């Protein structure tokens, strides 16, 4: 009702609009830059050769720039982290939303908040200093770094996001459902699993996608833990080098404009397209939840 008096007639409104649009164009600029800088290699090698190629030696003549090992590593690490963190995170979200005594919840929530604030390089460092050491000593390995290690640390990193988003999704279920279910005499656990979970499905899916996006784009932790070996990973326990680690390690040595440099931007573009499509998926699934909840 307030909004109807055409604010854009005011110069101040126009000023705000211009700044907002200008700032928003930076996103477009990021995508365009990735495209522009990597265009020559896409033209020279073709999409399928880069995505599916398994050789990465951009400095030889002719340069070979297959990204398949890194794409595989990225997927292994991210999916592995989700396999570990989603069951734990959802159970933790249910615990916080339904079962935790008020005192324990009052400790757990701020601690989760603190954990989202710890930078990834600290997680990577702790993982490498403690976890990798542990693997080396326990299993008598020459080097304990592996995709599995990176997944473990990523699990801890995305857990707070899953728990917090999952709890919000569970709390958004209208209390009438709880009351109706409990009035019918079912146990609280039964009510949670058969009534609340299906109702909060979309919100939980949102938490899942958010965590996947985080895990895919993560750089420092995987850089320090995945082992940085340019081979096609054969299992979860082999070493690998995800896309983000490749870029971070090699950008400093690639001279601007060379094939190496362009190939790294191609890697950045692949990562960006991947993460952006995950985000758009989240956005549109989030929209549906909003509509459904208002109807309910």
């Amino acid at each position, binding site marked *: 009702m307030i909004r109807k008096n055409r604010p854009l007639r005011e110069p*101040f409104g126009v000023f705000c609009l211009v700044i907002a649009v200008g700032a928003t164009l930076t996103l477009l600029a990021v995508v365009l830059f990735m495209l522009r800088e990597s265009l020559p290699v896409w033209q020279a090698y073709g999409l399928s050769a880069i995505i599916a190629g398994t050789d990465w030696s951009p400095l030889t003549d002719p340069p070979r720039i297959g990204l398949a090992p890194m794409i595989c590593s990225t997927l292994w690490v991210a999916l592995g982290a989700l396999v570990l963190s989603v069951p734990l995170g959802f159970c933790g979200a249910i615990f916080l939303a339904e079962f935790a005594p008020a005192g324990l919840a009052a400790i757990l929530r701020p601690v989760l908040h*603190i954990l989202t*604030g710890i930078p990834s390089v600290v997680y990577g460092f702790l993982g490498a200093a403690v976890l990798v050491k542990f693997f080396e000593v326990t299993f008598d390995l020459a080097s304990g770094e592996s995709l599995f290690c990176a997944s473990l640390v990523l699990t801890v990193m995305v857990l707070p996001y899953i728990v917090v988003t999952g709890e919000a999704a569970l709390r958004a279920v209208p209390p009438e459902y709880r009351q109706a279910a409990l009035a019918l005499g079912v146990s609280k*656990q039964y009510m949670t699993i058969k009534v609340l979970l299906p109702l909060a499905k979309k919100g939980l899916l949102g938490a899942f996608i958010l965590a996947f996006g985080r895990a895919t784009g993560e750089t420092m932790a995987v850089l320090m833990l995945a082992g940085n070996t340019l081979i096609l990973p054969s299992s979860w326990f082999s070493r690998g080098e995800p896309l983000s680690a490749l870029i971070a390690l090699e950008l400093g040595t690639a001279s601007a404009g060379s094939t190496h440099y362009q190939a790294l931007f191609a890697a950045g573009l692949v990562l960006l397209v991947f993460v952006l499509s995950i985000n758009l998926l989240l956005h549109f699934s989030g929209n549906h939840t909003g509509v459904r909840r208002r109807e309910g």
Partner: protein
Amino acid sequence: MNWRHGQDRLWLAAFWGAGLLILLILGSILSCLLIKGGPALSLDFLTTGPKGTPLGISGGILPCLKGTISLMAIALTAAAFPGIVTAVYLVEFGEHSRLKNIINLTVQCMAGIPSIVTGLFGYALFVVYSGFGISLLAGGLSLGIMVFPVIVVTARDALLGVNPLYRLTGLSLGVSRRYLLVRVILPQALPGILSGLLLAAGYAAGATAPIMVTAAAISAGSSGNLFTPVMALPYHLYILFSQHISLENAYGTALVLVLLLLLLNTTALWLRRIKEKGA
């Protein structure tokens, strides 16, 4: 009946187990940092530069602390104004237009861009095309792009949280939108906006990937020159550990970084609390 009871008990155990396991993991991370990093921490550690060969094997982290703070300051200077103005547009002038939806979606997408891709963009735009080279300025601006969506989202929520009665009253008195915004709404939303800026500062201080490719150096003086590389806490930590220079100092650096971020984040939370109490 028994089967159902058994199942119930199993689920209860799973939920409690998950909750306690999460608490245990979090607790052990924080205590590990405190126990191992504590001994390295001293006033000397904070007020001297790294020494020895290879650099960092002894001595402190003063230049890294300075570098991180300058990077943070540049990022905030670059991103705060456009971020807050964008939020003002979204809340006050956006109406229910399509453009508002597009900007909202874009900001959400920007928040999801991996930090290394932001770094890659910063490298191409600032280091190569603008000719800044690997420098404090290039790193600060890249971090500014990274924290921009955080500022927009928190400022937007702070503005949306202002009691709508203020707006109605102001408009019914015939005050212009600009006056209403500057004199009434912004002061009300100020704690929320400041809290968002602090969160953004913490995010910038901890980011490693973008500065690794645009700004950071293993060793640099703390001259404050915008066009020279700088040392920064997160990158220093990475180097200390990955080059096997000093595990003890690495723990100390990690602890300092985490304490700095804790300080920023708890201040942000505290500001938000104040506002909730006032409203």
